[in-house]
């Protein structure tokens, strides 16, 4: 279906990534946000708080991130599209409810504008060090989707995608921004509402008698009902059967947890978005994501000016990890160079997926700034020699 025009601020704007993310959420149909202030993400909900009463919806500032991350899920079961926004310390507090959303298959979006950590770390400076937390932060086996925008325009475009994927797969989607992307101001073009594709809730059309709240329907994504519609369904974070009833057996656990994984893994080809440039014939491919891909772009240009054969692979989807793409590229190149604003997180995934077919070179950065193009260039030059 097309976007509701009430939420779409069609036009050309000069705004930062945080503001663009908010507009993306509104365009996607988000009419509920619960938040707790935290730098460098607060602008997203500040804008939402100003915009949403004129669009028809609710913002509530909760008492902490534990509350925010579950309040939004209550809103989803009440019928809204909902999200929350935070940064590292708040993201840590939200882990409990990422697990709850995964287990109860509550479609929602968690925006994490990453800053330096651990702990309070660098409140106003960037990092990309929550990438593994986004994937594994809550306990137990589960799958999520994580997207990494590298510009304010993408903060708009990909926020819509994040909501769409959340609805399609009934899964929490992590929107992994970083401080630079969040605070960088650039041109953002917001198209007309009828040019924006929005995925509606996978709402059941079955009768009360026929409805099975956690029936797998063949495509592994159950149909949803909302409170107040007469279905009298039960939702629990306990291991549950297709009726949604708790069932403490290894068989039910196996069936449920495998479905929660497989509904994402089996669709990985569709979920994994990436951008590639000059990979054919390259000796070295720089694998990057988020703000680091902007620096990598410059480094790749500089390397090409020196006559080096360098390709670029930008991961737009971080989770599920696009291992098929890496496995396809690795045998064709000498090395995969992975700059990221952490001391080595996604690089390990790249190394795993490359299966020894190409050398994997990390370019770690502890955060607080971004790489210099020279740092990445030097690594490319070094890797080209081997």
């Amino acid at each position, binding site marked *: 279906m097309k976007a509701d025009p009430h939420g779409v601020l069609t036009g050309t704007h000069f705004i930062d990534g945080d503001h663009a993310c908010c507009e993306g959420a509104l365009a996607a149909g988000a009419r509920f946000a619960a938040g707790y202030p935290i730098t460098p993400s607060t602008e997203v909900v500040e804008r939402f708080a100003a915009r949403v009463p004129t669009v028809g919806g609710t913002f509530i500032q909760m008492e902490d991130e534990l509350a925010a991350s579950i309040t939004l899920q*209550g809103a989803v079961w009440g019928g809204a599209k909902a999200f929350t926004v935070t940064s590292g310390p708040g993201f840590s507090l939200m882990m409990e409810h990422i697990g709850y959303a995964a287990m109860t298959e509550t479609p929602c979006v968690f925006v994490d504008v990453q800053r330096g950590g651990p702990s309070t770390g660098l409140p106003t400076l960037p990092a990309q060090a929550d990438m593994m937390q986004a994937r594994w932060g809550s306990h137990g086996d589960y799958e999520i989707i994580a997207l990494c925008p590298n510009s304010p325009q993408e903060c708009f475009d990909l926020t819509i995608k994040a909501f769409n994927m959340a609805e399609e797969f009934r899964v929490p989607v992590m929107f992994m921004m970083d401080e630079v992307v969040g605070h960088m101001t650039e041109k953002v073009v917001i198209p007309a509402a009828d040019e924006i594709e929005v995925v509606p809730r996978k709402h059941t059309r079955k009768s009360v008698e026929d409805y099975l709240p956690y029936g797998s329907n063949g495509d592994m994504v159950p149909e949803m009902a909302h409170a*107040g519609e007469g279905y009298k369904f039960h939702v629990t974070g306990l291991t549950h059967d297709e009726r949604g009833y708790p069932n403490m057996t290894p068989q039910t656990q196996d069936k449920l947890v495998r479905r929660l994984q497989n509904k994402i893994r089996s669709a990985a080809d569709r979920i994994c978005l990436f951008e590639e440039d000059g990979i054919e014939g390259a000796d070295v491919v720089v694998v990057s994501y988020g703000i680091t891909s902007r620096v990598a772009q410059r480094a790749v240009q500089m390397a090409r000016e020196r006559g080096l054969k360098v390709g670029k692979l930008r991961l737009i989807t971080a989770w599920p990890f696009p291992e098929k793409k890496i496995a396809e590229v690795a045998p064709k190149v000498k090395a995969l160079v992975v700059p990221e604003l952490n001391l080595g997180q996604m690089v390990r995934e790249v190394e795993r997926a490359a299966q020894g077919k190409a050398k994997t070179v990390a370019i770690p950065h502890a955060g607080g700034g971004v790489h210099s193009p020279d740092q990445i260039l030097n690594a490319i030059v070094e890797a080209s020699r081997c």
Partner: protein
Amino acid sequence: MLNIVDNTVNPVEPFLRSDRMPHIWCPGCGIGTTVNSFARALIDSKIDLESLALVSGIGCTGRVAGYVKLDSFHTTHGRAIPFATGLKLANPKLNVVVYSGDGDLSAIGGNHLIHAARRNIDLKVICVNNLIYAMTGGQTAPTTPGHATTSTNPYGTFEPAFNLPHLVEAAGAVYVARWTTFHVRQLARSISEAFQKKGFSFIEVISPCPTLYQRRNKMGDGLDTMKYYKEKSKVKHGAPTSEVGLTLNGEIAVGKFVDRDRPDYQSMMRAQYVESLGERYIEEPEAECVCG
């Protein structure tokens, strides 16, 4: 009041998920009794069951959500109130009941409890207070009276307990009552009254845990506890909540302590937006915005 003619069917059965019986509660536990009173309040107050949602946290009382035939949510530990807040705000037509235990609501969920009361979110909170953490084996809770023996205070508790009616009144609740599981009719009446209130209502139900609290404290079985509740309870409507704290063996003040009116969160929100935004304020989301 009750208009049930068929005596072969338990009048509360239509409110229960019979296919989930037997329940997990111990013999002598009071939680089932509170559910009975709750169901009777639903009958008495003629609440539309399709517009009623029930949210629980974690613990013995947290299992109530799984046994009632309503849209029911068994959430995470301590977070029933914020979940219920989102549910209510996204669909204001819902009647939202939070049904959970003392540890869930006042320890791990204590922050949410006071803030929901402060905001005066239109929620009906039923807090079954068995004075300990029961599901995990009888550990000390913020509600455990001084000198009681628990699994984590084997030599007796010494930290002061929360007086829950006092806490929620101070935080802003519009309706505060307390009963014991001996007072089944009074409890049902209080729940019915709470449904008539707009705003944050809090009903505390003192309830036995014969397995872990009464046994450890040599207070007898479930029946002995009923006798204790009968003898030691004193109805004190309107009592200052500062004076209704509980002790190990002392009097249990019961009754309706607070019944007042102040605007609930959504009324205040609407009023503020109308004042600031005038016609630019759009109250209801577009109906077709989510469901295809």
